[in-house]
Protein backbone atom coordinates (compact mmCIF):
# COMPACT_ATOMS: atom_id res chain seq x y z
CA UNK A 1 0.00 0.00 0.00
CA UNK A 2 1.02 3.61 -0.50
CA UNK A 3 0.14 6.87 1.19
CA UNK A 4 -0.05 9.66 -1.34
CA UNK A 5 0.36 13.09 0.24
CA UNK A 6 -0.41 16.34 -1.52
CA UNK A 7 0.11 19.94 -0.44
CA UNK A 8 -2.38 22.10 -2.36
CA UNK A 9 -3.99 25.49 -2.43
CA UNK A 10 -7.03 25.39 -0.12
CA UNK A 11 -9.59 26.41 -2.70
CA UNK A 12 -8.55 23.47 -4.89
CA UNK A 13 -9.86 20.93 -2.41
CA UNK A 14 -13.11 20.22 -4.21
CA UNK A 15 -11.40 19.84 -7.58
CA UNK A 16 -8.94 17.37 -6.13
CA UNK A 17 -11.69 15.44 -4.39
CA UNK A 18 -13.67 15.25 -7.59
CA UNK A 19 -10.62 14.09 -9.52
CA UNK A 20 -9.87 11.42 -6.93
CA UNK A 21 -13.40 10.12 -7.12
CA UNK A 22 -13.04 9.68 -10.86
CA UNK A 23 -9.99 7.44 -10.28
CA UNK A 24 -12.00 5.50 -7.71
CA UNK A 25 -10.55 6.80 -4.47
CA UNK A 26 -13.13 6.37 -1.74
CA UNK A 27 -11.70 8.42 1.06
CA UNK A 28 -9.10 10.93 2.12
CA UNK A 29 -7.91 12.90 5.08
CA UNK A 30 -7.38 16.66 5.01
CA UNK A 31 -5.41 18.86 7.36
CA UNK A 32 -4.75 22.58 7.49
CA UNK A 33 -1.08 23.42 7.15
CA UNK A 34 0.99 26.45 6.37
CA UNK A 35 3.60 26.46 3.71
CA UNK A 36 6.83 28.25 3.08
CA UNK A 37 8.45 28.28 -0.35
CA UNK A 38 8.63 30.33 -3.50
CA UNK A 39 5.19 31.81 -3.05
CA UNK A 40 5.24 35.11 -1.22
CA UNK A 41 3.16 35.73 1.87
CA UNK A 42 1.60 39.10 2.61
CA UNK A 43 2.07 42.14 4.81
CA UNK A 44 -0.28 43.64 7.33
CA UNK A 45 -0.02 46.99 9.07
CA UNK A 46 -1.31 47.68 12.57
CA UNK A 47 -0.98 51.26 13.78
CA UNK A 48 1.99 51.66 11.50
CA UNK A 49 3.77 48.50 12.60
CA UNK A 50 4.52 46.28 9.61
CA UNK A 51 3.76 42.65 10.04
CA UNK A 52 4.95 40.15 7.45
CA UNK A 53 3.21 36.82 7.18
CA UNK A 54 5.42 34.65 5.00
CA UNK A 55 3.65 31.38 5.69
CA UNK A 56 0.89 30.65 3.22
CA UNK A 57 -2.22 28.65 4.12
CA UNK A 58 -2.30 25.28 2.37
CA UNK A 59 -4.19 22.06 2.72
CA UNK A 60 -2.50 18.71 3.09
CA UNK A 61 -4.39 15.81 1.59
CA UNK A 62 -3.50 12.25 2.48
CA UNK A 63 -4.81 9.36 0.44
CA UNK A 64 -4.16 5.69 1.07
CA UNK A 65 -4.06 3.80 -2.21
CA UNK A 66 -3.17 0.46 -3.62
CA UNK A 67 0.38 0.33 -5.02
CA UNK A 68 -0.90 -0.07 -8.56
CA UNK A 69 -2.94 3.10 -8.39
CA UNK A 70 -0.18 5.35 -7.13
CA UNK A 71 0.79 6.85 -10.46
CA UNK A 72 -2.79 7.48 -11.56
CA UNK A 73 -3.60 9.08 -8.27
CA UNK A 74 -0.55 11.32 -8.29
CA UNK A 75 -1.23 12.28 -11.88
CA UNK A 76 -4.87 13.09 -11.27
CA UNK A 77 -4.08 15.14 -8.16
CA UNK A 78 -1.41 17.08 -10.00
CA UNK A 79 -3.84 17.77 -12.79
CA UNK A 80 -6.68 18.81 -10.54
CA UNK A 81 -4.61 20.95 -8.17
CA UNK A 82 -2.78 22.86 -10.85
CA UNK A 83 -3.45 26.55 -11.39
CA UNK A 84 -0.11 27.17 -13.03
CA UNK A 85 0.83 29.83 -10.54
CA UNK A 86 3.55 29.65 -7.94
CA UNK A 87 2.46 27.85 -4.79
CA UNK A 88 0.49 25.06 -6.37
CA UNK A 89 2.27 22.61 -4.11
CA UNK A 90 3.75 19.14 -4.13
CA UNK A 91 2.60 15.57 -4.29
CA UNK A 92 4.50 12.46 -3.21
CA UNK A 93 4.02 8.88 -2.08
CA UNK A 94 5.30 6.80 0.79
CA UNK A 95 5.28 3.02 1.30
CA UNK A 96 2.81 1.87 3.93
CA UNK A 97 2.61 -1.35 5.94
CA UNK A 98 -0.09 -3.01 7.95
CA UNK A 99 -2.95 -0.75 6.94
CA UNK A 100 -5.97 -1.72 9.01
CA UNK A 101 -9.56 -0.54 9.10
CA UNK A 102 -10.38 0.10 12.73
CA UNK A 103 -14.03 -0.80 12.46
CA UNK A 104 -13.51 -4.25 11.00
CA UNK A 105 -9.86 -5.08 11.35
CA UNK A 106 -9.69 -5.63 7.57
CA UNK A 107 -6.16 -5.21 6.25
CA UNK A 108 -4.51 -3.54 3.28
CA UNK A 109 -6.72 -3.28 0.15
CA UNK A 110 -9.76 -4.34 2.08
CA UNK A 111 -9.15 -1.56 4.54
CA UNK A 112 -9.73 1.09 1.89
Amino acid at each position, binding site marked *: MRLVTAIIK*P*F*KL*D*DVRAALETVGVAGLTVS*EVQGFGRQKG*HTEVYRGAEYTVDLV*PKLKIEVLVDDLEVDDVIASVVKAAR*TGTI*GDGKVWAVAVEGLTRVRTGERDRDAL
Partner: protein
Amino acid sequence: MTTSTLAASHFDLTKIDTGSTAWVLASAALVLLMTPGLAFFYGGMVRRKNVLGMLMQNYVVIGIVSIVWVVLSFSLAFGAGNGFIGDLHFAGLQHMSEVIPGYVGSAAQTIPPMVFVVFQLMFAIITPALITGSTADRWRFAAFVPFIVAWSILVYGPVAHWVFSPEGWLFKLGALDFAGGTVVHINAGTAGLAMALVLGKRRGWPKEQMRPHNVPFVLLGAGLLWFGWFGFNAGSALGANNLAAYAFVNTNTATAAALLAWIAVEKIRYGKPTTLGAASGAVAGLVAITPAAGFVSPVGSILIGVLAGAICAYAVSLKSKFNFDDSLDVVGVHLIGGIVGSLCVGLLSTVATNSAGTNGLFYGGGLTLLGKQALAVVCVIAYSFVMSFIIAKVIGLFVKNRVSEQDEITGLDLALHGESAYEFGASGGVPHRASTASTSGSETSEVAV
Protein backbone atom coordinates in the same frame (compact mmCIF):
# COMPACT_ATOMS: atom_id res chain seq x y z
CA MET B 1 -60.92 52.00 50.16
CA THR B 2 -61.22 48.55 48.64
CA THR B 3 -59.02 46.99 46.04
CA SER B 4 -61.74 47.13 43.45
CA THR B 5 -62.25 50.82 43.85
CA LEU B 6 -58.49 51.22 43.68
CA ALA B 7 -58.29 49.22 40.50
CA ALA B 8 -61.04 51.35 39.12
CA SER B 9 -59.50 54.71 39.89
CA HIS B 10 -58.25 56.61 36.86
CA PHE B 11 -54.56 57.40 36.57
CA ASP B 12 -54.05 61.11 35.95
CA LEU B 13 -51.44 61.30 33.19
CA THR B 14 -51.09 65.03 33.60
CA LYS B 15 -49.50 64.39 36.99
CA ILE B 16 -46.67 62.21 35.74
CA ASP B 17 -43.09 63.25 36.48
CA THR B 18 -41.26 63.29 33.15
CA GLY B 19 -37.85 62.91 34.82
CA SER B 20 -38.97 59.79 36.61
CA THR B 21 -40.60 58.54 33.43
CA ALA B 22 -37.37 59.10 31.53
CA TRP B 23 -35.36 57.21 34.13
CA VAL B 24 -37.71 54.23 34.30
CA LEU B 25 -37.94 54.03 30.51
CA ALA B 26 -34.15 54.05 30.33
CA SER B 27 -34.05 51.49 33.11
CA ALA B 28 -36.43 49.21 31.24
CA ALA B 29 -34.10 49.30 28.24
CA LEU B 30 -31.13 48.57 30.52
CA VAL B 31 -32.85 45.56 32.04
CA LEU B 32 -33.81 44.21 28.62
CA LEU B 33 -30.12 44.22 27.73
CA MET B 34 -29.38 42.04 30.73
CA THR B 35 -30.82 38.95 29.07
CA PRO B 36 -28.52 39.10 26.04
CA GLY B 37 -25.81 39.85 28.57
CA LEU B 38 -26.76 36.74 30.48
CA ALA B 39 -26.80 34.76 27.24
CA PHE B 40 -23.15 35.63 26.67
CA PHE B 41 -22.23 35.18 30.33
CA TYR B 42 -23.59 31.64 30.08
CA GLY B 43 -22.77 31.08 26.43
CA GLY B 44 -19.09 31.68 26.97
CA MET B 45 -19.04 29.12 29.78
CA VAL B 46 -20.45 26.20 27.84
CA ARG B 47 -18.55 24.09 25.39
CA ARG B 48 -18.22 25.34 21.87
CA LYS B 49 -20.73 22.87 20.53
CA ASN B 50 -23.48 24.19 22.81
CA VAL B 51 -23.07 27.95 22.67
CA LEU B 52 -25.88 28.54 20.19
CA GLY B 53 -28.20 26.30 22.16
CA MET B 54 -27.60 28.56 25.14
CA LEU B 55 -28.02 31.80 23.22
CA MET B 56 -31.17 30.45 21.62
CA GLN B 57 -32.81 29.59 24.93
CA ASN B 58 -32.14 33.05 26.30
CA TYR B 59 -33.35 34.96 23.26
CA VAL B 60 -36.41 32.79 22.98
CA VAL B 61 -37.22 33.51 26.61
CA ILE B 62 -37.36 37.18 25.71
CA GLY B 63 -39.76 36.31 22.91
CA ILE B 64 -42.03 34.10 24.94
CA VAL B 65 -42.26 36.12 28.12
CA SER B 66 -42.79 39.39 26.26
CA ILE B 67 -45.99 37.97 24.80
CA VAL B 68 -47.17 36.07 27.86
CA TRP B 69 -46.68 39.16 30.00
CA VAL B 70 -48.84 41.54 28.00
CA VAL B 71 -51.49 38.91 27.39
CA LEU B 72 -51.73 37.47 30.86
CA SER B 73 -49.04 37.45 33.48
CA PHE B 74 -48.73 41.17 34.12
CA SER B 75 -52.33 41.06 35.25
CA LEU B 76 -51.68 38.01 37.41
CA ALA B 77 -48.76 39.77 39.04
CA PHE B 78 -50.17 43.26 39.53
CA GLY B 79 -53.92 42.93 39.15
CA ALA B 80 -55.84 43.36 42.39
CA GLY B 81 -57.09 39.80 42.88
CA ASN B 82 -56.26 38.51 46.33
CA GLY B 83 -53.06 38.23 48.32
CA PHE B 84 -51.88 35.23 46.35
CA ILE B 85 -52.62 36.09 42.75
CA GLY B 86 -53.83 39.01 40.72
CA ASP B 87 -56.97 39.01 38.64
CA LEU B 88 -57.38 39.28 34.88
CA HIS B 89 -58.41 42.92 34.89
CA PHE B 90 -55.28 43.96 32.96
CA ALA B 91 -55.11 40.92 30.68
CA GLY B 92 -54.12 42.02 27.18
CA LEU B 93 -53.18 45.34 28.76
CA GLN B 94 -56.74 46.53 29.01
CA HIS B 95 -57.60 49.27 31.52
CA MET B 96 -54.10 50.69 31.43
CA SER B 97 -55.55 54.13 32.05
CA GLU B 98 -56.22 53.06 35.62
CA VAL B 99 -54.03 53.23 38.69
CA ILE B 100 -52.26 49.94 39.29
CA PRO B 101 -53.83 48.45 42.45
CA GLY B 102 -52.17 49.46 45.69
CA TYR B 103 -49.97 52.22 44.35
CA VAL B 104 -51.82 54.93 46.19
CA GLY B 105 -51.11 57.61 48.72
CA SER B 106 -47.39 57.96 49.36
CA ALA B 107 -46.82 54.93 47.11
CA ALA B 108 -48.62 56.54 44.18
CA GLN B 109 -46.69 56.14 40.95
CA THR B 110 -45.47 59.22 39.09
CA ILE B 111 -44.92 57.33 35.84
CA PRO B 112 -47.50 56.17 33.27
CA PRO B 113 -48.82 52.69 34.09
CA MET B 114 -47.51 51.47 30.72
CA VAL B 115 -43.98 52.37 31.81
CA PHE B 116 -44.44 50.25 34.90
CA VAL B 117 -45.75 47.39 32.75
CA VAL B 118 -42.70 47.31 30.52
CA PHE B 119 -40.22 47.86 33.33
CA GLN B 120 -41.69 44.92 35.24
CA LEU B 121 -41.79 42.88 32.05
CA MET B 122 -38.03 42.95 31.87
CA PHE B 123 -37.86 41.31 35.31
CA ALA B 124 -40.28 38.65 34.17
CA ILE B 125 -37.99 37.96 31.21
CA ILE B 126 -34.66 37.60 32.94
CA THR B 127 -35.96 35.42 35.76
CA PRO B 128 -36.67 32.28 33.72
CA ALA B 129 -33.64 33.06 31.57
CA LEU B 130 -31.47 32.60 34.66
CA ILE B 131 -32.62 28.99 34.89
CA THR B 132 -30.87 28.08 31.65
CA GLY B 133 -27.52 28.07 33.42
CA SER B 134 -28.20 25.07 35.58
CA THR B 135 -29.61 23.06 32.68
CA ALA B 136 -26.93 23.84 30.11
CA ASP B 137 -26.18 21.43 27.27
CA ARG B 138 -29.08 19.01 27.74
CA TRP B 139 -32.52 20.63 27.87
CA ARG B 140 -34.59 19.74 24.85
CA PHE B 141 -35.80 22.86 23.09
CA ALA B 142 -39.21 21.30 22.48
CA ALA B 143 -39.62 20.86 26.23
CA PHE B 144 -37.98 24.13 27.14
CA VAL B 145 -40.50 26.28 25.28
CA PRO B 146 -43.65 25.02 27.03
CA PHE B 147 -41.81 25.07 30.37
CA ILE B 148 -41.08 28.77 30.01
CA VAL B 149 -44.65 29.56 29.08
CA ALA B 150 -46.04 27.62 32.04
CA TRP B 151 -43.44 28.82 34.50
CA SER B 152 -44.01 32.48 33.64
CA ILE B 153 -47.71 32.09 34.33
CA LEU B 154 -47.73 29.65 37.23
CA VAL B 155 -44.58 30.57 39.09
CA TYR B 156 -43.34 34.03 38.20
CA GLY B 157 -46.74 35.71 38.12
CA PRO B 158 -47.87 34.58 41.56
CA VAL B 159 -44.50 35.09 43.28
CA ALA B 160 -44.21 38.59 41.82
CA HIS B 161 -47.72 39.25 43.12
CA TRP B 162 -46.86 38.07 46.65
CA VAL B 163 -43.76 40.22 46.96
CA PHE B 164 -43.94 43.14 44.54
CA SER B 165 -47.64 43.94 44.36
CA PRO B 166 -48.95 46.05 47.26
CA GLU B 167 -51.82 43.58 47.17
CA GLY B 168 -49.53 40.62 47.77
CA TRP B 169 -49.48 38.80 51.09
CA LEU B 170 -45.73 39.01 51.59
CA PHE B 171 -45.74 42.68 50.68
CA LYS B 172 -48.52 43.33 53.13
CA LEU B 173 -46.70 41.29 55.73
CA GLY B 174 -43.83 43.71 55.42
CA ALA B 175 -41.17 41.50 53.87
CA LEU B 176 -38.81 43.74 51.92
CA ASP B 177 -37.46 42.98 48.47
CA PHE B 178 -36.32 46.10 46.67
CA ALA B 179 -35.68 44.68 43.22
CA GLY B 180 -36.18 40.95 43.27
CA GLY B 181 -33.94 38.98 45.61
CA THR B 182 -36.76 36.55 46.20
CA VAL B 183 -38.91 37.09 43.11
CA VAL B 184 -36.04 36.90 40.66
CA HIS B 185 -32.97 35.24 42.09
CA ILE B 186 -34.19 32.83 44.74
CA ASN B 187 -37.08 31.97 42.50
CA ALA B 188 -34.88 31.28 39.46
CA GLY B 189 -32.15 29.64 41.50
CA THR B 190 -34.61 27.22 43.03
CA ALA B 191 -36.18 26.43 39.67
CA GLY B 192 -32.66 25.87 38.38
CA LEU B 193 -32.04 23.37 41.12
CA ALA B 194 -35.29 21.58 40.38
CA MET B 195 -34.52 21.40 36.67
CA ALA B 196 -30.96 20.23 37.25
CA LEU B 197 -32.44 17.35 39.22
CA VAL B 198 -35.15 16.63 36.68
CA LEU B 199 -32.73 16.60 33.74
CA GLY B 200 -29.88 14.84 35.50
CA LYS B 201 -26.18 15.36 34.95
CA ARG B 202 -24.49 16.27 31.72
CA ARG B 203 -22.95 13.25 30.07
CA GLY B 204 -19.49 12.86 31.53
CA TRP B 205 -19.95 15.24 34.44
CA PRO B 206 -18.11 15.47 36.80
CA LYS B 207 -15.42 13.13 35.51
CA GLU B 208 -15.03 15.15 32.39
CA GLN B 209 -14.36 18.76 33.23
CA MET B 210 -16.07 21.02 30.77
CA ARG B 211 -14.03 24.09 30.24
CA PRO B 212 -15.55 27.44 29.14
CA HIS B 213 -15.04 27.73 25.40
CA ASN B 214 -14.92 31.52 25.31
CA VAL B 215 -14.04 33.30 28.54
CA PRO B 216 -14.05 36.77 26.96
CA PHE B 217 -17.74 36.23 26.19
CA VAL B 218 -18.28 35.51 29.89
CA LEU B 219 -16.67 38.84 30.73
CA LEU B 220 -18.63 40.63 28.06
CA GLY B 221 -21.82 39.21 29.52
CA ALA B 222 -20.78 40.22 33.02
CA GLY B 223 -20.10 43.76 31.82
CA LEU B 224 -23.50 44.03 30.18
CA LEU B 225 -25.15 42.59 33.28
CA TRP B 226 -23.43 45.09 35.55
CA PHE B 227 -24.46 47.92 33.25
CA GLY B 228 -28.04 46.74 32.93
CA TRP B 229 -28.37 46.05 36.64
CA PHE B 230 -28.33 49.77 37.37
CA GLY B 231 -31.69 49.87 35.64
CA PHE B 232 -32.77 46.79 37.53
CA ASN B 233 -32.01 48.17 40.99
CA ALA B 234 -31.96 51.94 40.68
CA GLY B 235 -34.91 51.79 38.30
CA SER B 236 -36.85 49.98 41.00
CA ALA B 237 -37.07 53.29 42.86
CA LEU B 238 -39.59 54.03 40.09
CA GLY B 239 -38.34 57.59 40.04
CA ALA B 240 -35.36 59.82 39.41
CA ASN B 241 -34.72 60.62 43.03
CA ASN B 242 -32.39 60.23 45.97
CA LEU B 243 -33.54 56.67 46.59
CA ALA B 244 -32.56 55.75 43.04
CA ALA B 245 -29.17 57.32 43.70
CA TYR B 246 -28.66 55.22 46.83
CA ALA B 247 -29.77 52.08 45.03
CA PHE B 248 -27.32 52.90 42.25
CA VAL B 249 -24.39 53.49 44.60
CA ASN B 250 -25.18 50.42 46.68
CA THR B 251 -25.48 48.24 43.60
CA ASN B 252 -22.09 49.28 42.34
CA THR B 253 -20.38 49.09 45.70
CA ALA B 254 -21.66 45.64 46.60
CA THR B 255 -20.75 44.32 43.16
CA ALA B 256 -17.22 45.65 43.44
CA ALA B 257 -16.80 44.20 46.93
CA ALA B 258 -18.09 40.81 45.82
CA LEU B 259 -15.78 40.74 42.81
CA LEU B 260 -12.79 41.35 45.06
CA ALA B 261 -14.00 38.90 47.69
CA TRP B 262 -14.46 36.09 45.18
CA ILE B 263 -10.99 36.42 43.67
CA ALA B 264 -9.52 36.75 47.14
CA VAL B 265 -11.07 33.39 48.03
CA GLU B 266 -9.65 31.92 44.82
CA LYS B 267 -6.22 33.30 45.61
CA ILE B 268 -6.37 31.64 49.00
CA ARG B 269 -7.84 28.33 47.85
CA TYR B 270 -6.10 27.84 44.52
CA GLY B 271 -3.27 30.34 44.50
CA LYS B 272 -4.57 32.24 41.51
CA PRO B 273 -7.37 34.77 41.06
CA THR B 274 -9.27 34.02 37.85
CA THR B 275 -11.08 36.12 35.30
CA LEU B 276 -14.05 33.80 35.50
CA GLY B 277 -13.98 34.28 39.25
CA ALA B 278 -14.01 38.05 38.91
CA ALA B 279 -17.02 37.86 36.61
CA SER B 280 -18.73 35.38 38.92
CA GLY B 281 -18.08 37.50 41.98
CA ALA B 282 -19.51 40.56 40.30
CA VAL B 283 -22.69 38.69 39.47
CA ALA B 284 -22.91 37.29 42.99
CA GLY B 285 -22.69 40.82 44.34
CA LEU B 286 -25.34 42.07 41.95
CA VAL B 287 -27.61 39.25 43.01
CA ALA B 288 -27.15 39.82 46.73
CA ILE B 289 -27.63 43.57 46.62
CA THR B 290 -30.78 43.29 44.54
CA PRO B 291 -33.21 42.94 47.45
CA ALA B 292 -31.23 45.42 49.56
CA ALA B 293 -30.18 48.18 47.16
CA GLY B 294 -32.87 50.61 48.28
CA PHE B 295 -32.79 49.79 51.98
CA VAL B 296 -29.17 49.73 53.14
CA SER B 297 -26.35 52.23 53.43
CA PRO B 298 -23.29 52.22 51.16
CA VAL B 299 -21.27 50.77 54.02
CA GLY B 300 -23.90 48.08 54.42
CA SER B 301 -23.63 47.32 50.73
CA ILE B 302 -19.90 46.69 51.10
CA LEU B 303 -20.66 44.15 53.78
CA ILE B 304 -23.29 42.45 51.64
CA GLY B 305 -20.89 42.35 48.72
CA VAL B 306 -18.07 40.80 50.71
CA LEU B 307 -20.38 38.18 52.18
CA ALA B 308 -21.95 37.33 48.83
CA GLY B 309 -18.64 37.12 47.02
CA ALA B 310 -17.00 34.93 49.62
CA ILE B 311 -19.97 32.67 50.36
CA CYS B 312 -20.83 32.09 46.70
CA ALA B 313 -17.19 31.39 45.86
CA TYR B 314 -17.48 28.47 48.25
CA ALA B 315 -21.07 27.63 47.36
CA VAL B 316 -20.20 26.73 43.76
CA SER B 317 -18.39 23.69 45.15
CA LEU B 318 -21.58 22.34 46.74
CA LYS B 319 -22.71 20.68 43.54
CA SER B 320 -19.67 18.42 43.53
CA LYS B 321 -20.23 17.57 47.16
CA PHE B 322 -23.91 16.81 46.75
CA ASN B 323 -23.40 15.52 43.25
CA PHE B 324 -26.04 17.45 41.29
CA ASP B 325 -25.05 19.07 38.03
CA ASP B 326 -25.96 22.73 38.43
CA SER B 327 -23.93 23.27 35.33
CA LEU B 328 -23.23 27.01 35.45
CA ASP B 329 -23.91 27.51 39.16
CA VAL B 330 -27.35 29.06 39.19
CA VAL B 331 -27.83 27.60 42.65
CA GLY B 332 -24.41 28.62 43.91
CA VAL B 333 -24.73 32.18 42.68
CA HIS B 334 -28.41 33.09 42.38
CA LEU B 335 -30.10 30.97 45.03
CA ILE B 336 -27.36 31.32 47.64
CA GLY B 337 -26.61 34.92 46.69
CA GLY B 338 -30.30 35.75 46.79
CA ILE B 339 -30.65 34.24 50.26
CA VAL B 340 -27.61 36.14 51.52
CA GLY B 341 -29.04 39.40 50.22
CA SER B 342 -32.57 38.84 51.41
CA LEU B 343 -31.47 37.97 54.92
CA CYS B 344 -29.00 40.83 55.04
CA VAL B 345 -31.92 43.18 54.49
CA GLY B 346 -33.19 41.93 57.84
CA LEU B 347 -29.89 42.93 59.38
CA LEU B 348 -28.84 46.07 57.52
CA SER B 349 -32.03 47.78 56.39
CA THR B 350 -32.20 51.37 57.61
CA VAL B 351 -34.86 54.04 57.32
CA ALA B 352 -32.04 56.52 56.86
CA THR B 353 -31.77 55.21 53.30
CA ASN B 354 -35.44 54.54 52.72
CA SER B 355 -38.10 56.08 54.91
CA ALA B 356 -40.61 53.62 53.47
CA GLY B 357 -38.46 50.77 54.75
CA THR B 358 -37.94 49.31 58.19
CA ASN B 359 -34.90 49.16 60.41
CA GLY B 360 -33.13 45.81 60.47
CA LEU B 361 -31.49 44.10 63.42
CA PHE B 362 -28.32 46.17 63.32
CA TYR B 363 -30.33 49.37 63.27
CA GLY B 364 -32.40 48.62 66.28
CA GLY B 365 -35.27 47.06 64.38
CA GLY B 366 -34.96 43.83 66.29
CA LEU B 367 -35.61 40.43 64.74
CA THR B 368 -39.02 41.18 63.24
CA LEU B 369 -37.82 42.12 59.78
CA LEU B 370 -35.26 39.32 59.71
CA GLY B 371 -38.04 36.88 60.50
CA LYS B 372 -40.23 38.19 57.70
CA GLN B 373 -37.31 38.01 55.29
CA ALA B 374 -36.65 34.42 56.29
CA LEU B 375 -40.30 33.57 55.84
CA ALA B 376 -40.33 35.11 52.37
CA VAL B 377 -37.19 33.17 51.43
CA VAL B 378 -38.62 29.87 52.62
CA CYS B 379 -41.99 30.35 50.97
CA VAL B 380 -40.53 31.32 47.61
CA ILE B 381 -38.09 28.40 47.68
CA ALA B 382 -40.81 25.95 48.55
CA TYR B 383 -43.29 27.20 46.00
CA SER B 384 -40.78 27.57 43.20
CA PHE B 385 -39.23 24.16 43.75
CA VAL B 386 -42.47 22.25 43.89
CA MET B 387 -44.09 24.07 41.00
CA SER B 388 -41.03 23.92 38.75
CA PHE B 389 -40.71 20.23 39.43
CA ILE B 390 -44.37 19.56 38.69
CA ILE B 391 -44.36 21.63 35.51
CA ALA B 392 -41.34 19.76 34.17
CA LYS B 393 -42.80 16.40 35.06
CA VAL B 394 -46.10 17.20 33.41
CA ILE B 395 -44.34 18.38 30.27
CA GLY B 396 -42.32 15.17 30.47
CA LEU B 397 -45.51 13.26 29.95
CA PHE B 398 -45.82 14.73 26.47
CA VAL B 399 -42.26 15.38 25.28
CA LYS B 400 -38.86 14.24 26.56
CA ASN B 401 -37.29 16.92 28.73
CA ARG B 402 -33.76 15.87 27.87
CA VAL B 403 -32.00 15.56 24.53
CA SER B 404 -30.91 12.13 23.31
CA GLU B 405 -27.44 10.92 24.20
CA GLN B 406 -26.49 11.21 20.55
CA ASP B 407 -27.67 14.81 20.37
CA GLU B 408 -25.83 15.63 23.57
CA ILE B 409 -22.60 14.23 22.13
CA THR B 410 -23.17 16.09 18.89
CA GLY B 411 -23.95 19.29 20.73
CA LEU B 412 -27.12 21.34 20.86
CA ASP B 413 -26.03 23.73 18.13
CA LEU B 414 -25.96 21.12 15.43
CA ALA B 415 -28.43 18.64 16.86
CA LEU B 416 -31.25 21.02 17.77
CA HIS B 417 -30.64 24.05 15.60
CA GLY B 418 -28.70 22.73 12.63
CA GLU B 419 -26.01 25.37 13.00
CA SER B 420 -22.43 25.65 14.10
CA ALA B 421 -21.28 28.71 15.97
CA TYR B 422 -17.92 29.44 14.44
CA GLU B 423 -16.05 28.88 11.21
CA PHE B 424 -12.53 29.09 12.55
CA GLY B 425 -9.49 27.19 11.46
CA ALA B 426 -5.75 27.74 11.40
CA SER B 427 -5.98 28.76 7.77
CA GLY B 428 -9.46 30.22 7.86
CA GLY B 429 -11.09 26.87 7.71
CA VAL B 430 -11.19 23.97 5.30
CA PRO B 431 -13.59 25.08 2.58
CA HIS B 432 -16.73 22.97 2.65
CA ARG B 433 -18.61 21.87 -0.41
CA ALA B 434 -22.10 23.33 -0.42
CA SER B 435 -25.04 21.09 -1.15
CA THR B 436 -25.44 22.73 -4.49
CA ALA B 437 -21.80 23.43 -5.10
CA SER B 438 -20.22 22.85 -8.45
CA THR B 439 -16.81 21.29 -8.48
CA SER B 440 -15.23 24.39 -9.90
CA GLY B 441 -12.62 25.53 -7.44
CA SER B 442 -13.13 29.10 -8.45
CA GLU B 443 -16.54 28.87 -6.93
CA THR B 444 -15.53 27.43 -3.64
CA SER B 445 -12.47 29.46 -2.88
CA GLU B 446 -12.20 30.36 0.75
CA VAL B 447 -8.60 31.49 0.92
CA ALA B 448 -6.32 33.51 -1.32
CA VAL B 449 -4.57 31.56 -4.03
